[in-house]
């Protein structure tokens, strides 16, 4: 049971396929870890199915079926696929994350405080990262110029808005300052999707912001 579910509107956008790739990945991971969100999305998919079923048929040219039948010659019916397995070191990764973990990706230490893996999302301006915080350590206080989506994948963290465990989802608009700190126990790993570069507000912010905005850290 998630204490911090994603808002229903976001689940609808996900089921309808309208989210950009970064936020869609964040929602997919939340849905993978939260049975209740999964039930909601199942239902929304059923709404999509019902809408298709009710759709008035568009005319399809007669040759379309013939062309499709001809193509079947080259297309095999595949055996039921086994779920993908994560590569060593990433056993905690829920299924939707696995295709993004290409070989060679590794944690990179940032500011001597936390680790980051930047994920590729071609065609999406969002910045998508996995962050890893040691227990009791935090991110520098920051606020956002755009929306930020966070889903906790391992461990837990606490900030001014509450405590977040595995599967919990947070979405925040710009202008909110927060300072997440990893809970005691195991390191906290979260996926963070940021619309625009974050703005550091602590004493070092002035010096670091130019680096952040250039995407160096």
């Amino acid at each position, binding site marked *: 049971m998630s204490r911090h579910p994603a808002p229903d509107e976001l689940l609808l956008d996900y089921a309808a396929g309208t989210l950009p790739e970064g936020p869609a990945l964040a929602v997919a991971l939340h849905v993978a870890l939260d049975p209740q969100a999964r039930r909601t999305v199942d239902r929304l998919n*059923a*709404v999509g199915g019902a809408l*298709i*079923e009710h759709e008035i048929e*568009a005319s399809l040219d007669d040759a379309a079926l013939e062309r499709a039948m001809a193509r079947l010659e080259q297309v095999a019916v595949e055996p039921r696929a086994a779920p993908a397995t994560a590569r060593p070191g990433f056993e905690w990764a829920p299924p*939707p994350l696995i295709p993004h973990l290409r070989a060679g990706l590794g944690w990179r230490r940032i500011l001597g405080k936390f680790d980051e893996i930047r994920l590729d999302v071609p065609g999406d301006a969002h910045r998508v990262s996995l962050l890893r915080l040691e227990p009791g350590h935090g991110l520098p206080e920051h606020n956002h110029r755009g929306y930020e989506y966070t889903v906790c994948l391992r461990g837990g963290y606490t900030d001014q808005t509450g405590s977040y465990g595995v599967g919990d989802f947070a979405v925040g608009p710009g202008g909110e300052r927060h300072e997440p700190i990893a809970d005691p126990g195991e390191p906290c790993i979260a996926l963070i999707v940021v619309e625009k570069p974050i703005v550091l507000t602590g004493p070092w912010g002035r010096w670091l912001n130019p680096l952040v905005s250039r995407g160096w850290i």
Partner: protein
Amino acid sequence: MLSADEAADLIEVIASRQDRAAFASLFRHFAPRVKAFIMRGGTDVEAAQEVAQETLIMVWRKAASFDRSRASAATWIYTIARNKRIDLLRRAARPIDTEDWLVVYAPEGEEADKSVLAGQTYTRVKELLGGLSEDQLVVIRKAFFEDKTHTVIAEELKLPLGTVKSRIRLALGRLREALEKDE
């Protein structure tokens, strides 16, 4: 017309013996509907036809992964068509994982009576759509058919974003409430 059970049978026959006649029946039923559905989002005729064609080819390829206890045929085909449309929009990028892991791989044993549930959910959703108020239906339709974000829907309906969000929430709340009665 094709009932939900008949459609599921056809997919299973493709999986078990690569039955081309079953494919043709599914194609005749679903391809024109998928095409119409995709065109509502403003996609042109040729592209919509391509999405419909690719969707049905994918139904053939992945027939063995279809699980009627998890989703109705129409729901499964909807998720494939949606992902194909996203692929079309992101033409340059790598194709997304078209096997919707949610429908295909969601953890086993989560809902004991899934088999009853999948069919029921689909039938109930169909009924419920008819029972929503016009206000609620408009936002849901726009979100699904026209591929709009909430901000764009709000602009088009000349409504505050908060109103659009609360209508969606109400509509989803009604769907959920009615569906949970069955569980």
